[in-house]
C-alpha cells in the first residue's frame, strides 16, 4: 500500500479538502494520504470529509500550528 503526502500548509478553506480529494482520486484503495495543514478549520472538516466519503481518518493531531491528518482511501 503506497503512502502519499499532501502539503496544504498556508491554504485556507476549502482548498485543503479540495486538494486532498484530488490526491485521493489518483490513489488506489487502501493507500494512505498524509496531509499537513495550517488551517484550524480543517480539523473539523477532515473528520466530516471522512464520515461523508467513507474514507477512513486514521489520525488527526496537531503539532504547534501544524495540523496533521492521515486518511486511508476506501
Amino acid at each position, binding site marked *: 500500500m503506497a503512502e502519499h503526502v499532501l502539503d496544504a500548509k*498556508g*491554504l*485556507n*478553506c*476549502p*482548498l485543503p*479538502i*479540495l486538494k*486532498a*480529494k484530488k490526491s485521493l482520486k489518483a490513489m488506489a484503495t487502501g493507500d494512505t494520504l498524509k496531509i499537513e495543514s*495550517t*488551517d484550524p478549520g480543517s480539523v473539523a472538516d477532515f473528520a466530516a*470529509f471522512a*464520515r*461523508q*466519503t*467513507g474514507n477512513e481518518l486514521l489520525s488527526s493531531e496537531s503539532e504547534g500550528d501544524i495540523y496533521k491528518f492521515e486518511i486511508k482511501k476506501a
Partner: protein
Amino acid sequence: MLDESNSNAKGMSIIATKGTLDWAYPPFILATSAAALDMEVTMFFTFYGLNLLRKDLDLKVSSLGNPGMKMPMMGMHMAMPNIISTIPGVDRGATTMMKNLIKKKGVASIEDLREAAVESDVRMIACQMTLDLFEIKKEDLIDGVELGGAVTAIEVACKSDVNYYM
C-alpha cells in the same frame, strides 16, 4: 445533535444571486466542497449572480450599505462610513485591499474555485430571463453553461437533498 453516521446526501442545489467579490465565495466554496464529497451539485445563477459566470471576472466589493464589512486600517478593523464609500475610487481601493487579504490569507481566488467547480462537473445553469433583462450574451459566459428558467431550478431543487439560496 447531528447524525454523524455516513448519511451522505446525494444532491445539492445552490441559487446564486449576488455578483460581488465577497458574495461570490459562499456559493463556490459550498459547491466545490460538496463536489469533493461526491455529491451531485447544480448551481443556478440569476440576477447579479450571472456576473460569476462571465469569462472575464471583474468582481468588486462595496462597503456602501455594508456596515458588517470591516477592513484593516490604521492598525485595526474599521467599517467605512457610507459617506466615504460614495467617493469615487473608494470601492476600487476596498477591492484591491480585499484581494490582497485573500492572497495573504491563502484563500482561493474566485477564478480558481470556479475552475475547480467546472473540473468536478458541477452543473451550472444561467437564468435565461436575467440574461435577456441585462442583455448578457451566452458568449460572454464561460463554456459549458446551460440555460434555464425557474422551473429548471425548481426541478433540480426537488431532486436535491440540500438546497441553498444565496
